[in-house]
């Protein structure tokens, strides 16, 4: 009996199963799992090759990188000399060369503060915030505008390029956040007049395009103030941008306020805290933390829309590049110019959006502990 169920010869060793890893397996699983997906993959790959290869050739392989005049351009690919030749003005605009070190200091201060605020591991966030909100604007104002402490006065008419873009974005962001907080609180107030004013203000700015706001700021604002008051063009644009974005900021913050259970506020009342203490110490810190991603997204939108100031005649990054395109020595480099502008904006916006996703993830895990 036993002999029938038992073998007396060894079974030959089988080949190991096909690997579940490796390039081929991965391709099979992700690109060629079924006839439809295979067709889609083949089409996508061919479109990518058809579109990307000429692009890479144009932008990198056949491009001209070195030189300082139009003669350096071979005309076969992109001519990045157009950018490098006017790199200084793209960064500083018409800022006098002798004073550009002041812009550099402001850039460095800003980068340092941003890193301090954005990297969670560095301690002392409260100090960073205080310096960012009070110290930095004063320092930047004194350094950029000059006219004090023996620094040469540089009129805002000479500001331009990346420096102006960052200035407009920073002031827009720093200015619209507090106005937005006040408006969001106002919209949730139980005083009818306060609520009505906030609602009308928010809905008005959210209902009109930023361009018309900038037009209004540049054409109508000077009419609103006494004739003696000189309104700087940059300041006018900044007022428009701040009012406009504060409405969007208010709606984001309102979302956060609504997410805080009313028990938090009631607990504060039970402790005998007044309105501002309850809001400032209990509700707002939680609400703002919840909507950090939303606030960063508004920052991104604001940053992108700073390019609109070119329409009212300010020379931001985009406008400087555009002005360079009309230079008779450099006609016909529109593609290089706009691709470079797009790249700069993209790097800023993409890093901000990545940061917002990172913060979102951090906050999500924060809930469980």
């Amino acid at each position, binding site marked *: 009996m036993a002999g029938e169920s038992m073998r007396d010869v060894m079974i030959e060793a089988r080949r190991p199963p096909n690997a579940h890893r490796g390039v081929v397996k991965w391709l099979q699983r992700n690109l060629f799992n079924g006839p439809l997906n295979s067709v889609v993959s083949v089409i996508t790959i061919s479109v*990518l090759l058809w579109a990307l290869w000429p692009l890479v050739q144009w932008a990198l392989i056949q491009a001209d990188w070195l030189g300082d005049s139009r003669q350096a351009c071979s005309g076969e690919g992109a001519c990045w000399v157009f950018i490098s030749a006017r790199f200084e003005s793209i960064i500083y605009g018409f800022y006098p060369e002798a004073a550009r070190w002041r812009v550099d200091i402001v850039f460095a201060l800003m980068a340092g503060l941003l890193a301090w605020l954005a990297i969670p591991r560095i301690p002392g966030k409260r100090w960073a915030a205080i310096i960012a909100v009070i110290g930095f604007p004063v320092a930047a104002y004194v350094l950029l505008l000059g006219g004090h402490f023996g620094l040469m006065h540089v009129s805002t008419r000479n500001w331009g390029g990346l420096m102006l873009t960052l200035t407009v974005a920073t002031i827009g962001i720093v200015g619209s956040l507090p106005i937005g907080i006040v408006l969001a609180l106002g919209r949730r107030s139980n005083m009818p007049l306060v609520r009505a004013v906030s609602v009308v203000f928010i809905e008005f700015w959210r209902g*009109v395009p930023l361009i018309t706001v900038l037009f209004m700021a540049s054409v109508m604002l000077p009419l609103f103030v006494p004739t003696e008051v000189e309104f700087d063009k940059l300041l006018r644009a900044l007022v428009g941008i701040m009012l406009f974005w504060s409405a969007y900021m208010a709606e984001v913050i309102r979302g956060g306020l609504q997410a805080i259970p009313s028990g938090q506020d009631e607990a504060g009342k039970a402790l005998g805290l007044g309105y501002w203490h309850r809001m400032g110490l209990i509700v707002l810190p939680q609400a703002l933390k919840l909507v950090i991603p939303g606030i960063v997204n508004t920052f991104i939108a604001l940053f992108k829309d700073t390019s609109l100031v070119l329409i009212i005649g300010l020379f931001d990054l985009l406008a400087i590049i555009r002005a360079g395109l009309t230079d008779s020595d450099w006609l016909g480099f529109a593609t290089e110019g706009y691709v470079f502008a797009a790249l700069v904006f993209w790097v800023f916006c993409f890093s901000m959006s990545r940061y917002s996703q990172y913060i979102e993830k951090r906050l999500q895990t924060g809930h469980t502990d």
Partner: protein
Amino acid sequence: MSRSPSGDRVALWRNPTFRAYVLQGVLLAALAALIGFIVVNTMANLEARGISTGFGFLDERAGFSIPQTLIEYSGDSTYGRTFFVGLLNTLLVSALGIVMATIIGFAVGIARLSSNWLLARLATAYVEIFRNIPLLVQILFWYFAVLQALPSPRQSLSLLEIVFINVRGLVIPDPQPLSGFAATPWALLVGIVAAIALGICAKRRQVRTGKALPIYWLGAGLIIGMPLLVFLLTGAPLEWSIPELTGFNFSGGVRVLPELVALWLALSIYTASFIAEIVRSGIQSVPGGQVEAANALSLPGGITLRKVVIPQAMRVIVPQLTSQYLNLIKNSSLATAIGYPDLVAVFSGTTLNQTGQAIEIVAMTMAVYLVISLVVSALMNVYNARTLLKER
């Protein structure tokens, strides 16, 4: 006079009701003062500059030409007319942009959820690239870098020798209705009304008897088939004017401004990247249990999609989609950067520069966008109320 819980009288200035009144009074006074300040200054400034206020300028002769007019317009028309010409151009590019952005957006949003790794990554790359580049840069790029680099009319790129594109714009065939064509649009209208009526009847019948009519086929027949039949029966009264190169330019067909093409492309591609994200999150927001439950009821795949997944995804998608449409309409005002004659470029631009009536013109322009926003938000509220999760 209110009392504290312990029964003591509370000082008037600690009474919340009283404080609320005082605060609102102060706010009202401040607002009134601000408005008064603005009005007084504006009056003084306008007087100093010799600008008269009022809307009388709308009846004056405009005297400038506009490259694209959907309604009759000439240099002899009034400034009031420029307002409507601009408004219609804004609505045209917005409508075109909304259609195109929706198509691209849904395609890319669904592609992001594809099981095909490459397609999903490509869709993600699309979203991340176009969402993070300012719209203005994109508009200028399409206009100055792409369209201006196209060949001259004589070397136009053509599609089947019917559609041509060159540096002066896009030339497409122009349909010329002959007599008797009017019956077709009427047939379309009747078809739509009949299809809606049929839909309501079919629903009632299904509730009563449980039998479903092939409503999609019948509706398609009514909306597409009937007008087509009428069109053919009346003898196909439509002629196409095909563009033809004569000398240095095209004759026949309609020329679409390059500005319109650039603006349309940029608006569609930019907005589509946001719509794609909305579509993706909408579809992902439907819990997997819903599909599993439908499978457990052995509903066919098509019905699961139509009756279970899409309605729930739409509840998330539609409100955000509408706000993207509103953004697109507002963003179309960037037309002024490349000279497409939209409301802002024509009315807040040329008309304002010629008349100097800044306040009236900026107010009218803003009012247009505000009215569009408020109407759409009101419709949105109705939709939200109807699709609100019915809690039992």
